[in-house]
Structure formats: C-alpha cells, structure tokens
C-alpha cells in the first residue's frame, strides 16, 4: 500500500523522540515527583486553565469562524489574516503584547484598574488569557475549515422551516460540523496545555497560582535535565489519557 509507507514513517517520526525521552527518563524518581505537592499543583493548574482557555476559545472563536466562513463582509480577507497573528508571533512576544494591553500600565489594563480595580497580570486569569490568545487561532481555523466543507443546503432547509441564523447555527450547522469543532477544540486544548512563553511573560511564575507544568519544566531545565524530562512525561501522560478518552467519545458521538 503506497499510503501505508509514508503513514508509518510519519508515525515513526512522531514517536521516536518520545522513545528517546522514555529511555532517558530517571524512572526511579518518578514516584517521588508524583507526590510533590508543587508538581501536583502545577498539573492541576495546567489542566484547569487549559480547559478554561478552550471554553473561552469556543465561546468567542466558533462565532468568529462562522463569520469568516458564512458572511460576506468588506475586509474579510484582512480579518482572516489577522486571526493567524498569534500563530506566528513568538509566544514570548505575545506575552509582552498582552502586558502592553492588559498590564497595569496597558491600554485596557489601566482602564480596568482605574474603573474596577482589577489587575489581570500575574493571576490565574492571566494564565487563561495567555493560553487562549495563543490557542484560539487553532480553533478558528479548524472550525472555519469544517464550516466551509459542510453542505450549506442543510442550512437552507432549516431556513425554510423557519429557523433564523442563530437557531440554524446551533441546531443544524454546529451538529453537522461537530467533528471539525471537536478537532479544533483538541488542538486548542493541547496547545494551551503546552503553552509556556506567553504564560510566563504575562502571568509570571508563581507556584499554585500561575506556575503551569510547562513553566515548571522550564525551571527544572535550569537545574536538572532529567527532572524536566520526568515532568514533561507526566504532563504528556495526563494529556494523552484525557485526549484519548475524550476524542473517541466525541468522534463516535
């Protein structure tokens, strides 16, 4: 089979480095790591904030994807291009940009501070925002692709039955593109979970509050390569287990 060879090669390319990590990991230290409260706190924070960031991305990104896929408006090309900005921006610069806007001295941040007394940076909210900023394009582009691939005639049929745009969207379009949305959400969640540069810049590195696993890995790298590998493998295992259980349910559902 002409398709199996490249597929196998691709899989090998993705899996071999993991094998390398597994071979190098100091397994004896694993139990001790797993009981360290700081590691557990970082793990919990990572999963929680990645999930919240995904929810935020779904709430804002799916409508934006719909706008790009279904509504003709002037400047659509520009908007579509702007959506890809956080993809290309080095995450650390993304973090700086977020500071420039939402920081205490920032465009929006100073107003938030003066009006509501809210400061975002260095809070768990900041972690969620940083992750959402970096991960949202993945969701938008995946969902837009799915929307373009979907047959718009079902939406016409819904309109003839009296469904407005909103109902058509929630009752017909979304269920039809559910696999695409699920794929986008997976990408988004995984990207948020692995996010490091923007998070440490915008939210800082406070254990229990803003120290996610990737940030902990970064710090561990400063002192101990093996420790960093073990932490990465813990993060990896957790995410793979969550994704494997979720995705198969979503896809078959």
């Amino acid at each position, binding site marked *: 089979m002409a398709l199996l060879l490249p597929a196998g090669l691709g899989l090998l390319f993705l899996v071999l480095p993991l094998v390398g990590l597994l071979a190098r990991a100091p397994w004896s230290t694993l139990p001790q790591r797993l009981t360290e409260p700081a590691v557990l706190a970082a793990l919990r924070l990572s999963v929680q904030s990645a999930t919240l960031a995904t929810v935020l991305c779904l709430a804002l990104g799916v409508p934006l994807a719909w706008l790009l896929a279904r509504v003709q408006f002037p400047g659509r090309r520009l908007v579509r291009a702007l959506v890809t900005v956080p993809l290309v921006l080095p995450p650390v610069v993304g973090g700086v940009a977020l500071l420039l806007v939402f920081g205490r001295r920032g465009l929006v941040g100073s107003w938030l501070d003066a009006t509501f007394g809210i400061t975002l940076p260095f809070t768990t909210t900041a972690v969620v925002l940083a992750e959402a900023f970096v991960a949202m394009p993945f969701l938008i582009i995946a969902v837009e692709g799915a929307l373009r691939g979907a047959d718009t005639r079902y939406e016409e049929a819904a309109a*003839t039955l009296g469904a407005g745009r909103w109902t058509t969207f929630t009752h017909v379009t979304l269920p*039809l593109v559910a696999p695409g949305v699920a794929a986008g959400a997976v990408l988004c969640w995984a990207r948020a979970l692995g996010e490091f540069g923007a998070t440490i810049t915008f939210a800082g590195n406070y254990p229990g509050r803003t120290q996610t696993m990737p940030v902990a890995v970064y710090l561990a790298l400063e002192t101990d390569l093996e420790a960093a590998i073990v932490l990465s493998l813990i993060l990896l295992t957790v995410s793979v287990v969550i994704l494997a259980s979720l995705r198969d349910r979503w896809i078959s559902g």
Partner: protein
Amino acid sequence: MSEPAGARLLDAHLVVERGDFRLDLPLTINPGEVVALLGPNGAGKTTALRALAGLLPLSAGHLTLAGREWDHPDRRVWIPTERRPIGVVFQDYLLFPHLTALDNVAFGPRRHGLGRQQARQRAADWLTRMGLAAHARRKPRQLSGGQAQRVALARALAVEPALLLLDEPLAALDAGTRLDTRAQLHRHLAAHTGATLLVTHDPLDALVLADRLVIIEDGHVVQEGDAATITARPRTDYVARLVGLNLYRGRAAGQRVRLSADFGLTTGDRHDGEVFVAFPPSAVALHPRQPDGSPRNTWPATIAGVQRHGDNLRIQLNGPIEVAADVTPAAAAQLRLVPGQRVWAAVKAAETRAYPAG
C-alpha cells in the same frame, strides 16, 4: 388567469439570472389552488422554487404573498427565508443527518413556537399519517430512499405553510407507496387553504394533484392552463410528448393543413392560418402496402425504432413527418416491424385535431 386580482394569494413575476440562464416567469396562485410547474430538465423549475423560498434573490420582477411583499428588487424589499411561511420538499430531501426522523419533522413546529412535547407530538402524528411511525427513531442514513422522501414531505407539511413548495415530492416512491402518498397529498392539498407549487416530471402527478399546469422551457412559459386544455391542445413538442400525442405545426386552409412544402394532412376541424395538428399514436395505423378506400391521410415511412410500451409496441417512424405509432404485438408480428422496414402510415382525418397556433 381570469380571476379578479384580489383572489390571488401568490402574485409574482420571477426573474432570475444564473450565468447564461435566465428565468422569466409570471406566476399567480389562488388560495387553495395547486399549480404544477412542469418542464424539461434544466428548464428552471428548481430555480423558480428557490426564488419563491427566498434562497435565490430575484434579479427583477416581484413576489407578493397575501398582499405582503417578499421580494421586490426595485423597491429593495426582501423578506428572508426563515420569515416566509413556507414549506419546502427539496429534490434531494436534505434531511438533517444528525436528527432522527421524528426530530427532523419536529424541527419546523419547534421553530414556529410549539413546545418540545407538542412539536414531537405533531411530528409523530405526521409520521404516522405517512406510514412511518415505526421509523420515527431512525437517522436519515438508516432510511431507504423512499422512506427519506416521505419524511421530507412530513417535515414540510408539519409547519402548515401558507405556500407549499414541492420539488418532485414523489419521484423516489415505489408505485404502491406513491399511490397512497399521492392520495394523502391530494387529501391534504384539498384541505390546504394556502397556495401550492408542485414541481414534477410526472404528468400523472400533475394531472391528479394540480388544478392548473404551468409549463416552462428554457426559463419561459410555453403553455398554461388546466389539465384538460393542455392534454387536448399541446403547443410544444415537450408538452406533446408529456401527454403522449404526435404534434405538428402548419398552415391551414379549411380542412387541409400544409406541414411542409410537399406534405400536408387532412384534419377533422376547419381553420385558416397557422395551426397545430395533434393525434395520438394509437390513431396511426400501419400497412405493408399503400391502403386504399375511405379518404384518409396516408404516407410512406421507414421504421426507426421499436420499443415495448405497456402491452403494445410503440413504433418510431421517419418519413415526410416523424411520427410515433402504437400497434399490438400481434399486428407487429404480422407486419414484421423491424427497424429499416418500409411501411405505409395512415391516420383518419376524424382522429386528428387542429387548433390555432400563435
């Protein structure tokens, strides 16, 4: 056509341009009336239906239902599809693949303000009426083609639309189900106080279900009227084939109609000027030699093709005019009717009908 304007429920002049194709169709439908839109493939039937549904905007003209303007490009009036009280059965059903048959039918009533339970109840009633109660929980992919089409029909009817648009609603049904569904549809349409437009290829559907036929070719109306008129007096080849007649155009002088420079027919009616002449294939008799005797139209012809047609055989003939003739298998065997064979065709003047053209 001759009703007072006030009786019209639908009053439209649909002009739509789609690439090279241009639809230009004046259309009125009275309350309770069922109009069948017939035409060859690509004539613009689906285009007209989409314009009525608001899925295609008009390029010009207007569209008014019950005095309310739905689409009028000159006045920039436009009511979107979801605010038009319509029901549509699409040519390829378009059942929502993620919903069960029941939820497909309940979708419209829900959107029209019914509660979930009421909507499902109404949907269940409709499915039962369509003989599909047992399939209510199936997804569209698990339905056969004909089952899917009946669900689509139920879905469109369940919103009790003021304008019902049917794009070949019976095409995928088997003969038995078709009869039942046609009867049900007929019953429903008879009770329906709204307007109905039925797009179909099947002349029987049109004759049974419709009060009036509008026939279009290449985007334009070629004939319009009740079934009896159209059946008796087709005006284009398409309509003639639809109703199963041979049709010719010629110049009449009394009973004699000249069809070409060197061929003419004697007809039962007297006219002067441009006329159509029509007669059924069964009126054509075939003879091995030139028949003599009573005054009739006779001409030599060559057999171009033979098909079974019901219990009879339908013979396509070339010659001064192209004509179809129906003969019994016994007669065919006796005449050795094979393609290429030369025969004489004969039609009694009394069996032909002539009527003014233009």
